[in-house]
């Protein structure tokens, strides 16, 4: 691993972000990444966060048109409430703050506590929970669907609406719409290694893949012998479309888990489009790349979101962040 010592992986990365992105304020001590121009007058602020190891999520999505602040936790460990409270206080212009929270027990609990504490300090807080991973079917008996690729859709689209000056209630409503209308499915071709453990966190022999893997290497639906890119696209979209049933165009994210090369991701993207074409589902926009990663895991995920014209307009709106930028 390209690190100094396991304990300093997160602060080291934050120092690097600060060096590379003078347009951001990176507070290494408090572990928050902020827009340098925060608070932006008259604008609802978006704050997200979660365990590190999924970069560019979330710190790489801070900037005009997306997040106002991100709170990185330790690797795969949710941030603590103090981080979100300090971020909320720094970015709130008086118009309120939307917390974008991925559905993991730790994230939910820490953001809930932070929301209470921030409200005690006079910040109006709304929350949206992202829970898009269809690999978790048995939500009565589990912590529920995990939040994965749809987080990018929620942060981009709600961030665009906030940039237009919409009030907190509307920003929250569109965030909920996107979260509710998005579904994801991921596969792992190799396990990921955490700096703490210094090796793979789960076993996945070469020649096998984990269908429905979570972004921390959580087990999916089944272990299978290696399949072709086309077969994986068929299986992933079967799982998603079983649940989503779009009646119009979709936004598609073809996401790499960290160590799958772009040339493979584009090949996989072609297969995803083929399957959607066979199902007569128009793809309005496609994003391909490593956006919601799992350290050095090899593999990919697909996220689809039902997209109406308003959602597409907000998707196309300018965004300027380290991880995502267009039109600005």
């Amino acid at each position, binding site marked *: 691993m390209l690190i100094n010592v396991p304990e300093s992986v997160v602060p080291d990365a934050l120092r690097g972000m600060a060096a590379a992105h003078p347009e951001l304020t990176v507070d290494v001590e408090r572990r928050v990444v902020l827009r340098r121009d925060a608070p932006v007058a008259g604008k609802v602020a978006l704050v997200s966060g979660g365990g590190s190891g999924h970069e560019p999520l979330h710190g790489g999505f801070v900037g005009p048109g997306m997040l106002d602040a991100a709170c990185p936790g330790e690797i795969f460990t949710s941030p603590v409430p103090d981080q979100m409270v300090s971020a909320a206080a720094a970015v709130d212009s008086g118009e309120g703050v939307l917390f974008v929270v991925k559905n993991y*027990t730790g994230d939910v609990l820490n953001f*809930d506590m932070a929301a209470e504490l921030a409200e005690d300090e006079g910040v109006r807080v709304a929350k949206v929970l992202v829970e898009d991973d269809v690999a978790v079917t048995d939500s009565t*008996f589990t912590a529920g669907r995990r939040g994965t690729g749809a987080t990018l859709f929620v942060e981009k689209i709600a961030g665009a609406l906030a940039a237009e000056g919409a009030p907190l209630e509307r920003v929250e409503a569109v965030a909920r719409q996107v979260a509710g209308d998005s579904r994801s499915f991921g596969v792992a071709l190799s396990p990921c290694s955490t700096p703490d453990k210094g090796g793979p966190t789960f076993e996945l022999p070469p020649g096998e893949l984990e269908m429905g893997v979570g972004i*921390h290497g959580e*087990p999916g639906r089944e272990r299978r012998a290696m399949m072709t890119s086309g077969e994986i696209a068929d299986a992933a979209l079967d799982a998603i479309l079983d649940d989503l049933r779009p009646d119009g165009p979709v936004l598609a994210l073809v996401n790499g888990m960290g160590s799958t090369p772009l040339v493979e991701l584009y090949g996989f993207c072609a297969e995803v489009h083929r399957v959607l074409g066979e199902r007569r589902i128009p793809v309005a926009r496609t994003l391909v790349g490593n956006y919601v990663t799992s350290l050095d895991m090899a593999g990919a995920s697909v996220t689809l979101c039902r997209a109406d014209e308003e959602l597409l307009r907000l998707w196309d709106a300018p965004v300027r962040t380290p991880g995502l930028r267009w039109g600005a």
Partner: protein
Amino acid sequence: MVSRELTGDDGRDGPGAGPGPGPAESGTEGGLDGEVFVRWLRLAADEVERAADRLTELDSAIGDADHGGNMRRGFQAVREGLAEDGPRSPGAVLTTAGRTLVSTVGGASGPLYGTLLRRAGKALGDAERVPGAELARALRAGVDAVAQLGGAAPGDKTMLDALVPAVDALEKSGGTDFGAARTAAEEGAAATEPLRARKGRASYLGERSIGHRDPGATSSALLIAALDRAVYGDTEGDD
């Protein structure tokens, strides 16, 4: 009256922890003072330090292999906080420690353990001495708050599987039998092994979570064991 004999304790704390330190000195008679609570948390930090690798190992089987490290970081911070301040009331000691855990642990265990101690501390108010029965009630309030926050119940393969039987045992004895609470917590933690997880990251494993002891229940049992030792005057960890 409380004595080692009554608790059925077998002296597993080693020499010096036998019937020697009587209730008049360090039991629940006349109530527990702030010092007992400081000692509890220091002993808990020792227990966590000793067991950190084992907690991580349990967590790597059904979670994400960070429970030992997270608990170690949190209780280390609690220990440092205790060193800074002078004597305080039992309630204040627990409330402060709870806040420290929330601010340093992260993950699910930070808010859950933090809430346990904060809520118990609040229930104790600012009394200088706390009778055992009062502590039992306060721990019940803390455990109820954990159940509410995590949306979990006993049998879900969580911390509650150790904490609930411990508080039940303590309440049943009118707040006198800390050894019974410890035994109940340890048995409760061991009994999570055949359970299927329904909450937290282990729940994604479904059937595959069966056959592994829950790391949260295991660390909860350490906390109750430290309380038993603290009440009976075990001073290891006072430094």
